[in-house]
């Protein structure tokens, strides 16, 4: 079994600020991390590897610095890494990115399962995974909290409004993973980090994956970002104090005034 996990290097959003004037992210001094959803997806792939002996390849698109997240994935137990890096990829939206990643998956060749994080925390679109499935022409299941491989099929727990579904599906398949609120990401030991240096990371350009340059970058991106802005700050609420009974009466009075209740 061969699992390809798609991962992305993102700014640590807990430390990113938005410049209120320009609407752009202030990246100065902000460390880069492995997108937490991808981290979770990778751990799930490695759990399947531990159980079935599957091979795990990690795939990322980004500048050379993105090697760091591939190295992290290799240190955690992935077998090989592929980095898509070329000027032609710059400015790609989710559609063009999904195209490039799908072309890379095709170039990797034989695979059974593509795992993606549900979304990247720097864009929050949750589009790239599903779009990749389209480009690869394979079925997809999104928003899965767990995944288990069983012979030629996988069983997933997919989150839906108000509950979850347990689904079984045949391979090949693309699955996007979301994570439980109490998820604590695993990090490698010093020795594992050291040994990951010996694992292979291939760097491919647009030419290497046979991508049509018109389908990449700004030209290949149908999305245009009009404006990014931080949401306006919430207005201050009114504070009341008093005994329970006084407060209850006050609330009823307001609800009536606002015509919420008669």
């Amino acid at each position: 079994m061969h699992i390809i996990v798609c991962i992305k290097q993102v700014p640590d959003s807990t430390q990113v600020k938005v410049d209120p004037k320009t609407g752009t992210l202030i990246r100065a001094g902000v460390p880069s991390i492995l997108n937490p959803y991808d981290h979770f997806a990778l751990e799930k792939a490695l759990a399947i590897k531990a159980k079935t002996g599957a091979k795990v390849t990690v795939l990322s698109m980004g500048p050379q610095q993105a090697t760091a997240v591939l190295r992290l994935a290799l240190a955690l137990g992935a077998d090989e890494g592929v980095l898509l890096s070329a000027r032609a990829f710059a400015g790609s939206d989710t559609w063009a990115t999904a195209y490039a990643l799908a072309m890379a998956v095709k170039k990797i060749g034989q695979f059974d399962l593509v795992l993606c994080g549900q979304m990247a925390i720097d864009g929050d679109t949750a589009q790239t995974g599903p779009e990749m499935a389209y480009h690869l022409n394979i079925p997809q299941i999104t928003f899965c909290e767990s995944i288990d491989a069983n012979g030629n099929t996988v069983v997933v727990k997919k989150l839906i409004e108000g509950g979850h579904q347990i689904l079984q599906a045949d391979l090949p398949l693309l699955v996007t993973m979301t994570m439980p609120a109490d998820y604590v990401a695993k990090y490698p030991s010093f020795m594992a980090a050291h040994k990951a240096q010996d694992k292979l990371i291939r760097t491919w350009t647009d030419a290497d994956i046979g991508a049509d340059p018109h389908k990449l970058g700004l030209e290949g991106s149908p999305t245009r970002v009009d404006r990014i802005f931080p949401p306006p700050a919430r207005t201050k609420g009114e504070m009341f104090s008093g005994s329970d009974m006084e407060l209850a009466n006050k609330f009823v009075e307001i609800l009536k005034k606002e015509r919420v209740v008669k």
Partner: protein
Amino acid sequence: MAKNDLTTRNLMLDSLKQYAKNRISFNLLREYDAKNEIPLDILKEMYDHDILGVHLLLIPEEYGGLGGQTTEIYRVCEQLARIDLGIATGVFATFLGSDPLNVGGTPEQKAKWFKKIAHENKLVAYGATEADAGSDLVSLRTRAEHVIQNGKVVGYKITGSKMWISNGGVADIYTVLALAPGGPSWFIVEKGTPGFTQDVHEDKHGIRLSNTAGLAFDEVYVPAENLIGLKEGQGFLQAQAVFGYTRLMVAAFGLGGGEEAVETALEYAGQRIQAGGPLSQKQGFMLKLITPHYIRFEAARAYIDWTAKQLEVNNHGLATEGAIAKLYATESGNKAAEDAIQAMGGFGYTKEFAVEKIKRDVKITCIYEGTSEVLEMTIFRGRWQEHLKSRGQYYLNQAAEFDALHAQNPQVGADSIALGFRALARILEDCRVNKLTRHQYVTFMLGDLISEMEVAAVFTRQCANKIVTEGSRFDLATLCTMARVNARQSAFKTAGEGLRLILGTCPAINTAEVSQAVNLVGIEDKMRGLIDDMDTVSAKLREIFKK
């Protein structure tokens, strides 16, 4: 296997940070601090190969370790210090304790003991200090007597005592310095050896999470194979060979502790509203209590990293550079922690906030591995020799280098460095001519000024060469501004202090003539724009550390 590259180093540091974030809360640290207890389970986890395996860094690859280079070890030390200096000291004691073995051990000894430390996760302690032998190891009293069988030395009986030994009460393996018939020598003593006992854990001002205890040896028998290097009399050489290196690690402790304190204070200042705005927006607050410390930290980081890279080439030595790094970084860290309390006012003075603990902890870095005063003396001696050997040209040559640097890049304060070095050269020369170094105080102060100038010079040179030191959170432009501020202040301190020393010890000197030669006025002239530069750094700090 390749040496660890930058990505690998960063991975290790991330793992360490994440481990600390998930496992070591401030409340946990506070609890152990109050109990004055070592968190042994945490240390054991840090040594666990599957969790972190920090100690593997110090063990050569051929014995199952990571063969860590100086750079990654100092960066790990800095990060450990940011977590807790007591825990850092516990880990460091294993590093330090293994050093005599690393330097002087035979291949068989290394194989035996390193494998034990690597695979059985043994805690190690370094037993050198005695009641009368601190920095002055020559007064060593602990003795190792021959045990002879059939005319052959088969072992040693060690008798004596050691004090203030980190991990003293909890280590499994001890490297102990004792006076053998052939001279001072290192011995390996295992816990549980008959006659070997450990005293109670000291009640210390800070680093209370580090176990510190005395050791007592009453005719403790160790086999001859436990004599490190199998040759007597190598003890001092083996101890001194690693001073440059070990002091660099403590320098990183000072840096890490100081950074953690000031960062806590800056975060607080971003939220503390006084007189209509956050404290971090107030110029005086920043320029007095926060910004100068970040400038010194970046200077220290540049110097530590530069020394580490030199040590990786030379392996041993660089005792003067190690001393400079430690003096500068630990004194800067200590002062920074004190100001962090001041910056947080009453909050900073309570145990509710980390800065109070950091202040107590970081003080040790100015004491262990050579007090600041011993270091000043070491630095003075090292460079005094250079001054004499070069007939006063040592710093004048460097001044010329910085003149050239300034011509290429006028933005990094190289002109001030050149002026500072010329002032320093003149001060040293006046001290020589007038025999002023007969005053011990003068030698201490000269050591301090030398350290001040050399660190500033390396920082400026790194910036001129467009080097952003790894681990720095600042961009090159900000670092250049910092270097410019730092160069001016270091030159000013050197010239002003130098004049104070010369005129204070030698009233016969012509004030006008020496003042002109030291050129304090020329250095003062470089101060134009200084406060603007500091404001620029403050603005950058607010941007980077804004929550």
